[in-house]
């Protein structure tokens, strides 16, 4: 493997990312499963980087999961997205920061459609006006939230408390990055580093001291498949695709997986548990799973945030082995406590992963 070849490709895909003044579009899946990641993102932007980002109570789902499960028509999702543009315009913003890769793909597809077929844009303007009386501007810049962390990865490194280094061996942590299909597979130029060798996460990992694992099924989908997961009888599709990835990354003995897309984050975490239950097999070291982090969690750990403030206790795969390697301090007693250290019960121990 020659790293120079990848660097040449990255130079081809230098996407423009706004510097400041963002309108935040939250993610359904991230809010459900990694709620602290969105909080961490806002905290990093506001407190660490001094940026202005607006968290609007009036925005909704983009309906992306509905669209890709085909119960929401294209005309409808276009208008829902247009409503968000209207809210952004009304709030005085021009730059979108999108928390979800599916949403990011939707926003990309819709704005590209409008460029190619201006009559679609006109249609949407009319229908939005008719439905709710709103008008909108198309954003000047649409970034995925990870693009913004990528852009400021150097600033984060300056404040770094913990390196992505195995303190027990002194070697860089081996980290699998998973980008999420809708980040750049549809529009390679809209992703940092393009579609084949995306750099958005690998750039963060390398900047903060880790080593990226390039394994054969790196580009393969996590297996979400929208209707293939949402309908219970189709879930074998979802599971088998994740399994294929785990089998492929296993020989490299990764210390962690970092994902870009909230759906992938959830599946790569939960399917490891399911596979452990089903076949008694785990893919991490010492009979454990491979911890799966969001990029916000990764940045938070690097910045020295408390792992339980980052929400690592919401993962099914324990992150403690990773914290131990990085020598990040944590109090096991606090892991499952609620706010103000309130005891709220704790999850049952997962047998195969204990």
């Amino acid at each position, binding site marked *: 493997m020659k790293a120079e070849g990848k660097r040449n490709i990255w130079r081809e895909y230098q996407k423009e990312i706004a510097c400041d003044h963002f309108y935040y579009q939250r993610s359904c899946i991230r809010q459900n499963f990694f709620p602290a990641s969105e*909080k961490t993102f806002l905290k990093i932007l506001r407190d660490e980087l001094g940026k202005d980002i607006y968290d609007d109570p009036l925005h909704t*789902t983009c309906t992306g999961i509905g669209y890709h499960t085909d119960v929401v028509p294209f005309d409808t999702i276009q208008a829902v997205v247009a409503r968000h543009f209207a809210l952004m315009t009304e709030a005085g913003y021009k730059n979108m920061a999108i928390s979800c890769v599916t949403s990011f793909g939707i926003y990309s597809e819709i704005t590209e459609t409008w460029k190619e077929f201006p009559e679609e844009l006109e249609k949407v303007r009319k229908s939005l006006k008719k439905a709710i009386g709103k008008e909108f501007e198309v954003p000047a810049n649409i970034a995925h939230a990870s693009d913004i962390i990528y852009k400021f990865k150097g600033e984060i490194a300056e404040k770094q408390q913990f390196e992505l280094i195995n303190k027990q061996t002194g070697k860089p942590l081996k980290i699998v990055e998973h980008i999420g299909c809708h980040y750049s597979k549809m529009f390679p130029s809209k992703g940092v580093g393009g579609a084949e060798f995306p750099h958005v996460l690998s750039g963060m990992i390398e900047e903060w001291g880790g080593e990226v694992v390039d394994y054969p099924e790196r580009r393969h989908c996590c297996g979400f498949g929208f209707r293939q997961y949402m*309908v*219970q009888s189709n879930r074998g599709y979802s599971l088998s695709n994740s399994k*294929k990835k785990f089998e492929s990354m296993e020989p490299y003995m990764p210390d962690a997986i970092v994902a870009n897309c909230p759906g992938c984050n959830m599946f790569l975490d939960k399917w490891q548990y399911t596979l452990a239950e089903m076949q008694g097999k785990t893919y991490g070291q010492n009979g454990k799973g491979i911890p799966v982090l969001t990029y916000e969690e990764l940045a938070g750990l690097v910045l020295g945030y408390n792992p339980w403030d980052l929400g690592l206790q919401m993962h*099914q795969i324990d992150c403690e082995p990773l914290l131990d390697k990085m020598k990040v301090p944590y109090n096991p007693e606090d892991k499952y*406590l*609620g706010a103000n250290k309130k005891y709220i019960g704790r999850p049952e121990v997962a047998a195969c992963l204990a």
Partner: protein
Amino acid sequence: MGIVLDLLKQDVRFHEGLKACMNCGVCTAICPAAEFYDYDPRMLVSIVQSNDEEAIIELLKSDTIWYCGQCMSCKTRCPRNNCPGLVINVLRKISQELGYFTESVKGRQQILIKRNIGDTILKTGYCIHPSIVKPELHPEQGPVWEWVYNNPNDVYERMGGNFDKEGAGTLRKINNEVLGELKAIFEVTGGTLLFDKIEKFSAMKAREAGLEGTDGNIDKYIEKVNAEDKI
């Protein structure tokens, strides 16, 4: 030209998704669905490209169009800038508009999705909400999710969320005014109409199969759809 070809050509995504296919197979090569199901996006595109109305109608009635997982990996690779995944979206839309989706096991699942994701969108303003990820239906979510599900207020509060409350923040309650706007958009843009069609054609199929309850409910039908039983 028949009605299906007309509908295909009216959809802007069909023009984006299919220019001309040379049957090279790069899409199938990396398609997660092709590996899991007996499915070949290249052949599907070939059928659509044939302009054969009857063959396309057969497709709309089949399981084939429901296998795609919408990852859109095909788009990255196609040397002719086609996107089979986008063609699929159009076929699925037409299959639901014309009621063909109830003819296949996988197509019939649309009623499950409409009642789950579709209704949740209009009810909560989210595609996914903790209330619909019931542990008994999602064993794969594991014990940690069960703990979250049973203690949503406490867990989301610990995570700095604003669960089910007014104002901004994670999993905030989306107020009725906003939900009203969402509903208005669905009504004006055909979203509500599509929901209604999925319900209508599913009810028709249930009736046809003698699976309709006396009060018009289709619970039995849904049970069979869930189990992928023959109907």
